[in-house]
């Protein structure tokens, strides 16, 4: 299963970014093969609807779960309709987040954790 983590950088020693739609990179991690790739978040500077665009990109990469700090209402709706599990409130190193996910230590969210535009103006 592929999981997506919002990331502060494009290497495995980076941390989980508190924002979803406007984070700089996404880590796409496949826990069955233990392989990963980083994708640059093209919508981070979108005029509006960054989360919506980012969520579609993540879905198109085949991710079935998303790990991030926070998720806004719009991206939440997109993931919900694609039946993708979202884990919020996660911070710290990516490796730690992966380990916690594998150990079933993360709890999925049943709603957006922040309002729209949370990720704006926080570089």
């Amino acid at each position: 299963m592929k999981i997506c983590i919002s990331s502060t950088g494009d290497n495995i020693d980076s941390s989980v970014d508190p924002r979803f739609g406007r984070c700089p990179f996404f880590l796409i991690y496949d826990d069955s093969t233990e392989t990963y790739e980083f994708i640059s978040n093209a919508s981070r500077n979108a005029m509006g609807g960054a989360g919506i665009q980012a969520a579609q990109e993540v879905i198109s990469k085949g991710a079935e779960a998303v790990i991030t700090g926070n998720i806004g209402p719009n991206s939440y709706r997109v993931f919900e309709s694609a039946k993708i599990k979202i884990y919020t409130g996660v911070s710290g190193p990516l490796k730690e987040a992966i380990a916690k996910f594998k150990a079933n230590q993360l709890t999925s969210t049943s709603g957006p954790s922040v309002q729209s535009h949370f990720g704006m103006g926080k570089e």
Partner: protein
Amino acid sequence: MIISVASGKGGTGKTTVSVALAQSLGYCNFYDFDVEAPNSDIFLKPDINHYQKVYVKYPYFIKKDGVSFKACSDFCHFNAIASINEDYIFFEELCHGCGGCILVGPEGYVREKDAEVGEISKGFKSPGIYFFMGNLKPKSMRTSNIQGDLEKMLDRNQTVIIDSPPGNSCSMVNAVKNCDYCILVTEPTPYGLSDLKISIDVLKNLNKKFGIIINRDGIGNKELEDFCRQNSYKILLKIPNDINIAKTYSKGGSLLEWEPKMKDKFLGIIDEIEKEVG
């Protein structure tokens, strides 16, 4: 002649000044372009006798097996449509109504419908103030559409006062682009000065004549006045920082109700502007 009253910083007294101008004139057309938060009616107290709805075109999508709206979501710069496999989500509040999704989407499955985004109220206040106020529906992004309909009602043959929204972005540009003269209201604080400079840049780009009214004179510092003097910008009026103005305002009273002598000052400003506009 069209006079717009604008300000980069919010809450400096645009409505206070524009209402006082209209009341001093007695005979004019007044337009509240601050459609996201119009409140000039509280102070001018016109009899509203007509409401005109503002409609814009919104797309709607017809779901069918095998029909994908991915082309629409790829096209939309505002990300108003998300395409997830064969499903879609339309975020109406993000849509700017460009119609692009209809052109690029699956033919016949994306159509347009009218949606109400707000209304314009028209009224009259004796002796001769014709009143026009735009009011955007909550959550709608269509500020410019309401302003566009207000713009169509502008009558250049009358003396026109436009109360602009705060800031220096599109909605402010819409409120000043037709004016012959712009009054910039500001306050003598670093914030007031900083935003004034941006407003002046906008007006210079639009080749507009302008003058400055300093409100809450007495607070802050002298930097604003020094800046105006150094650049030879005209200070039309200084309104003192007086608790009684705030008290009158809080009861829906205008500057003229605070001090009837202000009328002559505002008429003097109109005379000065008329001479400068020619």
